[in-house]
């Protein structure tokens, strides 16, 4: 919204995501994880968030993903503010796909079941869920590992299962918190390719936190954070 009114042209599409003066405080305001953050992300953008440890990257991603609510400020998804009353779980389920550094797969479930997990408790037909999960895993090059336990998969394979899981509900926004942080460089590269591919092939918007300059260089735009504020936004140098 901010950008739309500031940017001016009627043709410019509404950004998928807008943050207006967003803060997130902990410990009664003594810890300012985020301190007046403003920015917007366009549909189909691949944005990297970089910055030192403790600068507020994960906090920012949590707010965008409606895992937490800001202490101050507002967040908009396609122009509509998330409200405290809204069914945030339903919002996450419909629009957001999360990918975490340490995968967070459920060890008792197979790869396929992990991918179907977000759809559990929803009114999808089980057969349709299953077909979709199988095809997503196949897209991730895991056709032969459908029934493997995550504990038997390599880190790269696990993260690909997690990406498939993030995609099962057909979200429009993928939020990845250091998705390559636990992987060796070859696997990191492969996972990054998949994430870049999501944008290219499916037109998804990706917001990814990373420490790695080499990885953030692949993004359309890098947002650098320090002490809960955005340091500089723009094209990577």
């Amino acid at each position, binding site marked *: 919204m901010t950008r739309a009114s500031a940017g001016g042209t009627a043709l410019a599409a509404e950004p998928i995501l807008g943050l207006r003066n967003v803060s997130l405080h902990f410990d009664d305001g003594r810890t300012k994880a985020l301190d007046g953050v403003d920015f917007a992300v366009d549909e189909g953008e691949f944005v990297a968030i970089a910055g030192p440890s403790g600068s507020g990257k994960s906090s920012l991603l949590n707010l965008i993903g409606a895992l937490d609510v800001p202490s101050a400020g507002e967040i908009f998804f396609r122009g509509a503010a998330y409200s405290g009353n809204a069914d945030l779980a339903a919002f996450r389920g*419909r629009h957001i796909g999360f990918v975490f550094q340490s995968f*967070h797969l459920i*060890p008792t479930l197979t790869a396929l079941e992990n991918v179907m997990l977000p759809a559990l408790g929803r009114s999808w037909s089980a057969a349709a869920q299953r077909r979709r999960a199988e095809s997503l895993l196949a897209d991730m090059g895991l056709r032969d590992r459908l029934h493997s336990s995550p504990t038997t998969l390599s880190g790269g394979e696990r993260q690909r299962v997690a990406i498939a899981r993030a995609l099962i509900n057909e979200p429009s926004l993928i939020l990845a918190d250091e998705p390559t942080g636990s992987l060796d460089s070859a696997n990191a590269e492969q996972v990054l390719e998949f994430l870049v591919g999501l944008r290219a092939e499916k037109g998804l918007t990706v917001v990814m936190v990373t420490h790695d300059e080499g990885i953030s260089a692949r993004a359309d735009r890098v947002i650098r954070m320090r002490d809960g504020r955005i340091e500089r936004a723009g094209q990577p140098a």
Partner: protein
Amino acid sequence: MNLVSFALGNLRRRPARTALTLSAIALGIAAVVALTSIAWGFEASWQKANDARGTDLIVTRMASQNAMPSPFAAAPVREQLARYPHVQEVAGLLSEMLSVGEDNPPIFVFGWAYGSYLWEHLKLLDGRWPADRDEPAVLLGTLAAELLHKGVGDRIELEGRSFEVVGTFQSTALVENGAVLMTLDQAQAVTDKPGKVNVLNLKLDGQATEADARFVKEQVRKALPGYAAITSGELVSRNAVVRIAKAMSHVTILIAGLVGALIVFNTMLMSINERTREIGVLQALGWRRTTIMQLVICESLVLALAGGLVGIAVGVLIASGLEQAELMRGKIAAIYSVPFFLSVLGLSVVLGVGGGLYPAHRAARLSPAQALRHE
């Protein structure tokens, strides 16, 4: 995959804890099943004995709450009763729990008025009936014969008197199969209660209606102070032993339910604390709070129902062990019914949901961001 299979997987993750929780619930449920089936079986066995005899009303001392009502002099009461309309027969009965010889468990000894209708429902298997009211003879129920290792032609000792076993019989009522039977006069002599009976059994004629039975009850209340005419069901439910057994089974139900719920509560609270981050993940994946609650409740229910099923099996084993125990054989038959088992499963459901509710609520209330940061 569905919520239930996911819940099952979560329970299998901690097999030892799951097994322990399940066993604790099973033990409680087993105690409930064993005690309750025995308590109600006790009542039913006695009632069945009275019903098998064809007794319509039982006249007893009003205040008596013993398993066998206290004895009273039969003659005056009996004369009075015989005058009421539709009363076809009045048969005195004396009953005592005696030990037969040194090594045998105590056994019921029944004395029935010679020639009365009481004898008619028995099936003579071997030998004969007593020749007259004064013959020192006994008949053994099938189970009593087995327990005492006696048959026709053998002799048994009762209170220092010797009796000849002249026959064996079978009854549809367990307590009678487990009993030694003699004439009322012999029983009065053995127990040193001449002229006395524990109860007078009334058989009404074929034309008697419910209203006629009520009339007799009313007459007894008015004309025989200190006495009451009651049905066999009323007699049994007045029985103090039956009432104590039932009270104990109620207390057991309460304790087993509470302990079971606490155990489920503790286990599920531990389980969700361990899985805090995982619950954060589920929330990030779009699971609603209600779905997370359902998952936790589902796990609690699986624990409780599995514990309940195992408990029912163990409880039935305990009850049949008790039935077969030397001291109890022939006196109690546990009763089970589908509604009984369903109620026990209902109790399991209640303790499962009751114990799981708060942990489920806790899990659902977690802030997803905090849960994901956990550890």
